[in-house]
């Protein structure tokens, strides 16, 4: 069994008992990356020197003895929209090709305080806009299970890196499904916390009212440990929730007896691949055998979610991305004739097609004369969607369904039709609009490709989500399978 098959707790114990050193773990990671990343393309920036230096320092501390946090010495990857001081952060865009941030994101600070080892920055769809990692301005990412298929997006690099055993865990971000969908496609665990649970300070904003940072791991227990480390109120983020953080690990009791699950009929409809549905139904059977009950429910406004999302997210993005104007950050059009020319050409050249598409859509939706019909209307629809969830959660503890309508599609298959691409997120988007937490866990395979089960919880109900996910995982072995590549 390779190091990469071990749980974080197991690695922690081996380190504590000096069976392993941090440097060994780090070298193993770097070796794996060297062997596989030319094919997979998960990393945009590798910080070998930094990682080795940190590893050496941590080994010295290890020798000195004493208590160590759970993430001590563990090599991790960070999605490249998380700002890292002194380490290039590109958001997979040409615009930030030369950008070296002067500060750390709060989650990065927390990982450093927890003494994890940052191996490097992970590939993604440019500025988090995409569902396949094909929108990276640098290179696409390949699904470790099937190299001609996409890993999903926008946290494609993060999911692929964990799936391929390049790092022990990764952080991604999720605005409409960008952690959960790639986790499903790559056969790993991806958790999007409740909006406000994890600080957004230092996450390059795509859609401010929807973005959340979350862990991507090989199993649910690992996700709980990472969440425990990164969750918590941040005074630097005004949207950060001031709630007490429960013990997520203690929640992993394995006991789901008496829990009530709702399965939305809108999530199991015609657009969902029958093989995916099969996996979900089998998972529900497993949960039933553990003492839970499930019933069909309805989230009636689901059909409006994608439209509302793309209006709201694009509007916020059009404003958030306006700061990339060619004046700063190191990328500027050659010999601009005047200020307007500098703006227009730098942005035309610096942004990829999908980013430009969404900026235009968002600008339009916010403009005078259209604001009421589009942006404001979408906000109202958002309220209705949230109410759908509130109503179901009055009677049910969790909402369960497939994470995606299909398994990972082929690279190039959907990139030329943006609207078809948008529909990949139809099952994940409503969760962001409602601000509730959700996890995707491996629940089977369809034609050799992983299928994800999505478990959605009440606001700040991560403990229930993790408990159910962990209980299911303990009685299956889908999450232990590894792609042939590794």
């Amino acid at each position, binding site marked *: 069994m390779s190091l990469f098959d071990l749980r974080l707790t197991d690695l922690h114990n081996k380190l504590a008992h000096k069976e392993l050193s941090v440097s060994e773990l780090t070298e193993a990671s770097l070796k794996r990356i060297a062997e596989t990343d030319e094919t997979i393309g998960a990393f945009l920036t590798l910080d070998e020197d930094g990682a080795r230096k940190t590893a050496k320092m941590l080994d010295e501390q290890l020798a000195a003895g004493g208590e160590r946090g759970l993430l001590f010495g563990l090599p991790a990857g960070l999605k490249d929209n998380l700002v890292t001081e002194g380490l290039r952060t590109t958001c997979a865009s040409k615009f*930030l090709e030369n*950008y070296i*941030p002067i500060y750390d994101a709060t989650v990065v600070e927390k990982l450093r305080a927890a003494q994890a080892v940052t191996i490097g920055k992970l590939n993604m769809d440019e500025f988090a806009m995409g569902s396949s990692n094909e929108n990276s301005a640098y290179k696409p990412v390949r699904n470790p299970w099937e190299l001609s298929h996409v890993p999903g997006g926008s946290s494609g690099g993060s999911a692929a890196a964990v799936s391929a055993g390049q790092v022990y865990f990764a952080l991604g971000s999720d605005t409409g499904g960008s952690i959960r969908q790639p986790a499903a496609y790559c056969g790993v665990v991806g958790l999007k916390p409740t909006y406000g649970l994890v600080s*957004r*300070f230092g996450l*390059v904003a795509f859609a401010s009212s929807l973005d959340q940072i979350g862990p991507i791991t090989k199993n649910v227990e690992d996700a709980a440990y990472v969440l425990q480390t990164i969750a918590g109120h941040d005074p630097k983020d*005004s949207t950060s929730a001031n709630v007490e953080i429960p013990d997520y690990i203690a929640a992993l009791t394995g006991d789901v007896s008496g829990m009530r699950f709702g399965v939305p009929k809108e999530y199991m409809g015609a657009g969902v691949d029958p093989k995916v549905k099969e996996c979900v139904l089998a998972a529900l059977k497993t949960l039933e055998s553990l003492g839970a009950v499930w019933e069909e429910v309805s989230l009636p406004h689901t059909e409006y979610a994608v439209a509302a999302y793309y209006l709201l997210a694009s509007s916020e993005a059009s*404003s958030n991305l306006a*700061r990339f104007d060619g004046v700063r950050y190191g990328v500027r059009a050659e010999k601009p004739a005047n200020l307007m020319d500098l703006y227009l050409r730098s942005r035309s050249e610096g942004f990829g097609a999908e980013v430009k598409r969404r900026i235009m859509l968002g600008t339009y939706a916010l403009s005078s004369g259209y604001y009421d019909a589009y*942006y404001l209307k979408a906000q109202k629809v958002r309220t209705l969607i949230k109410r759908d969830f509130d109503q179901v959660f009055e009677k049910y503890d969790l909402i369960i369904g497939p994470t995606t309508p299909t398994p990972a599609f082929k690279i190039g298959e959907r990139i030329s039709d943006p609207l078809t691409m948008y529909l990949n997120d139809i099952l994940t988007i409503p969760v962001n609009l409602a601000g509730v937490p959700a996890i995707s866990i491996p629940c089977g395979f369809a034609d050799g490709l992983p299928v994800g089960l999505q478990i959605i919880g009440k606001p700040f109900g991560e403990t229930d989500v993790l408990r159910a996910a962990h209980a299911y995982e303990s009685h299956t072995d889908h999450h232990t399978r590894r792609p042939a590549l590794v």
Partner: protein
Amino acid sequence: MREAQDTMPLNSYETVIGLEVHVELHTNTKIFCGCQVSFGAPPNSNTCPVCLGHPGVLPVLNRQAVEYAIKAALALNCKVPEWTRFARKNYFYPDLPKAYQISQAEGPIGEHGWIDIEVDGKTKRIGITRLHLEEDAGKLMHVEGGQASLVDFNRVGTPLIEIVSEPDLRSPEEAKAYLEKLKAIMQYCDVSDVRMEQGSLRCDANISLRPYGQTTFGTKTELKNMNSFRHVQKALEYEQLRQADVLDSGGRIVQETRRWDEAKGVTISMRSKEDAHDYRYFPDPDLVRLHIDEEWKARIRATIPELPDARKNRYMEQYGLSSYDAGVLTSSKELADLFEDSLKYTTDAKASANWIMGDLLAYLNANNLEIQDVKVTGQGLGEMLQLIEKGTISNKIAKTVFKAMMETGKAPQQIVEEQGLVQISDEGAIREIVDKVVAANPQSVEDYKNGKEKALGFLVGQVMRETKGKANPALVNQLLLERLKS
């Protein structure tokens, strides 16, 4: 072209003016980050990733800025809502690092207020449409030769309140009175330095004309670049005539922004190829709405001192001052404080008022200073008046003493001693000098005896000269007359 000196040049048109005033709040730190607010620091020395708008940063609202804004709103008789919200005002300009300004659109901190102004002895109420809180932009400096511009971000994030008046002003004179009253109120509240020459108070004006009796407004122009109250008035006077000319000759006013050119004394169109800005306002998703409860409002209201109008009325009642005198004394809080301080050391309110309105204001005006720039204190003035009352110095000598007090801040007694200005009231000493002068000016004595009253004045002057002005003038007159009559 009409000339400004024509009497009643605009008797066919009614002038309608509205003013937009920006007031810089003198908080310690910026509105959304912890950087210092300071004037005149080296470029880009008071910045951080947040106010620089680096990718991933988030704003956190400054409590003191909110309290100052609420204080100002209450002092201007505005209604302060229970919930207030922030909005993004989106536009591109190099001095705006996020490419949006965090401001307020719906639900500003103050609405529907008013202040009273006095013009030609008549009181008039001017409505205040709204008062809102927002962040300032940076400063651009254009390099000679036009090859580049330099951006200084020190000012970005300084808290401002924007105060928009109803279009209730009907003359440039009223506009100036409004500005003076507004400045005084802000200054009394101690929320800003409100010094236009330092940029802590800025004013843009909107002006239109319409035939008397018409209820709809004519087309307005916006005037910018007026750097003093006097220039606001002059610019409006010019624009009034310009618009009247256009209308008289059958033309139409173009709605546009015009720049006041101080040197040429004209307004110049700033029209460019671009259309009017659509700022695409939408609620800032990075800031939650702010709750202002009655308790908080009451606590802030309690910190508002006696405002100019109330103080003026009190001076008229309590000290028997005229409306004009009371108005001048209360036009600035420092001046009024100085006045009242002086009355702890003297009971002669009239005299104190005269010294302040006379010598002090004349000195300030002549040297282009404000009250904060001179060192005289109320105590100093009061003690000086005591010295005059006791006869230690004459009124004439007091002028010298007062000037020294303004320049050095020393106590009057100290100045008198240092400069040997004690009034000579010793009869014997004066008689000696009277004898000397009489002996030295036989012709004048002869003239006086022959009925020339003027000769007495000359002789008094001579005695005063001999004593370097220090002889008690009344005593000199008396003793000289005695001598001449003998």
